[in-house]
């Protein structure tokens, strides 16, 4: 925003800050940015929905986005599940409600944390990775070269990444749900004196398909956000190593913020419609 002046000169020639002007300029900038993201996303979604497709590219991206994210998603989920169980135990014991640990853990993981943790980890690992790669291709003229070879970057680069993210995120979130619940179970049985069988039966009896579906719907939306933010910022990358680095940072930050914001919006919506 630094190119927009934050001060206006009055008649005496003295610089005075003008917050209204600054707010106006920022708001216009934000609207323009949202417009650009929407236009870009529309193009990529259109390419993903119509032939020609590049199945080879899609599978390659599924491997890169999905398979190599397994360790990071697994590790973060087990720790979150374990910490969640401990906190619920501490809180619950104040009301003598410790026995609800399995119920709250599985609810929290399936509806919120599985998807949010996976979304956030992939905003870092995948979104930044995509935008650094695309940014490097942009600044070394590989994107231009693609166009001259009659392959549109939307189809050959961006749509495969979007499709791969849409397919893999729900699978990763499902795994994160299972591993997160296991983290809670492990700490409850090992440290909090729960009976293993009872804990697991309570978990399975309590969780509903609605809880799981809610998390998986979020996963699909987060998948789109992560892939599109990565491609968008990479595509706009400015020349040089700093330009590419900046694109990676921007895509990570914007994907993470969008994941958290959209998570809240969707949680509200699901409560409204009773999902």
């Amino acid at each position, binding site marked *: 925003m630094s190119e927009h002046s934050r001060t206006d000169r009055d008649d005496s020639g003295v610089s005075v800050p003008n917050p209204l002007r600054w707010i106006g300029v920022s708001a216009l900038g934000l609207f323009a940015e949202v417009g650009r993201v929407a236009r870009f996303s529309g193009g990529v979604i259109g390419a993903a929905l119509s032939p020609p497709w590049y199945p080879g590219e899609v599978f390659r991206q599924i491997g890169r986005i999905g398979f190599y994210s397994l360790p990071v998603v697994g590790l973060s989920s087990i720790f979150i599940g374990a910490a969640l169980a401990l906190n619920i135990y501490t809180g619950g014991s104040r009301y003598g409600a410790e026995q609800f640990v399995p119920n709250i853990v599985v609810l929290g993981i399936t509806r919120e944390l599985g998807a949010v943790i996976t979304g956030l980890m992939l905003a870092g690992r995948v979104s930044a990775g995509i935008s650094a790669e695309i940014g490097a291709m942009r600044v070394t003229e*590989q994107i231009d070269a693609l*166009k001259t070879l009659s392959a549109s970057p939307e189809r050959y680069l961006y749509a495969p990444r979007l499709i791969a993210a849409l397919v893999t995120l729900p699978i990763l979130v499902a795994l994160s749900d299972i591993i997160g619940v296991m983290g809670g179970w492990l700490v409850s049985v090992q440290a909090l004196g729960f009976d293993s069988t009872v804990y697991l039966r309570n978990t399975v009896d309590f969780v509903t398909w609605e809880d799981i579906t809610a998390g998986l719907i979020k996963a699909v939306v987060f998948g789109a956000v992560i892939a599109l933010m990565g491609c968008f910022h990479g595509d706009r990358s400015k020349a040089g190593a700093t330009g590419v680095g900046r694109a990676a940072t921007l895509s990570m930050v914007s994907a993470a913020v969008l994941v958290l914001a959209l998570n809240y919006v969707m949680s509200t919506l699901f409560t409204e419609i009773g999902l």
Partner: protein
Amino acid sequence: MSAPLLELKDVIKSFGDNHVLRGVDIDVARGCSLVVLGGSGSGKSVMLKTALGLMTPDDGKIIFDGADVTFAGGREREEMRARIGMLFQSGALFDSLMVWENVAFRLIHSDGVKRAEAREKAIETLRKVHLGPSVADLRPAELSGGMQKRVALARAIITRPDLVFFDEPTTGLDPITADAINDLILDQVKALGAAAISITHDMASARKIADEIAMLHQGRIIWRGPASEIDRSGNDHVDQFVNGRAHGPIQPSL
């Protein structure tokens, strides 16, 4: 001379206050090899990118095979590009793909050629740029700069396009390989009847491959004529450039 295959009419392109092209008029016909000279930073690469539609001109027209393609999009643009080969100054090879996949990219992805067949064709084309089959399975990053340039050249000509742009085809090559590339460019034009626009600072190469030579200076084509007249152009700017003199009408804009 037949009708031009590509025509740029009064093309203007600026980046902010940097007025790069200030009204470029140029055309090239089938079977004609045009060499464009010009100082570093004079806008030669920008001119080629504008002609291809990778950059949109601020003003002016681009006519390809009789049709105005200045703002062409979608299918029309793709059909145009399918008939043009471009060698980028930087090579612009896809570093995630192997050398032969780079060379055969258009065959595999646009023309629907089977991979085995495309590979054969790629190796055959690599041989034309003096590269052996052993490089086919390497990644571009494993090649020297001059080898990358030749792979990029092979990628540009594999489908025998009607029009080829060569952005500094011989830069970074030893004189023997450079001359082989000159022959290859001539072959594209004379044997296959393509039109070619080459950018070069290498006067030996220019003299060998050019039917016509044009000079881009301060955003305009200031001289154009048959290659045989390059030493009798009567233009001080061209003389200074051709003879490589630091002093003369062309001064670095500092």
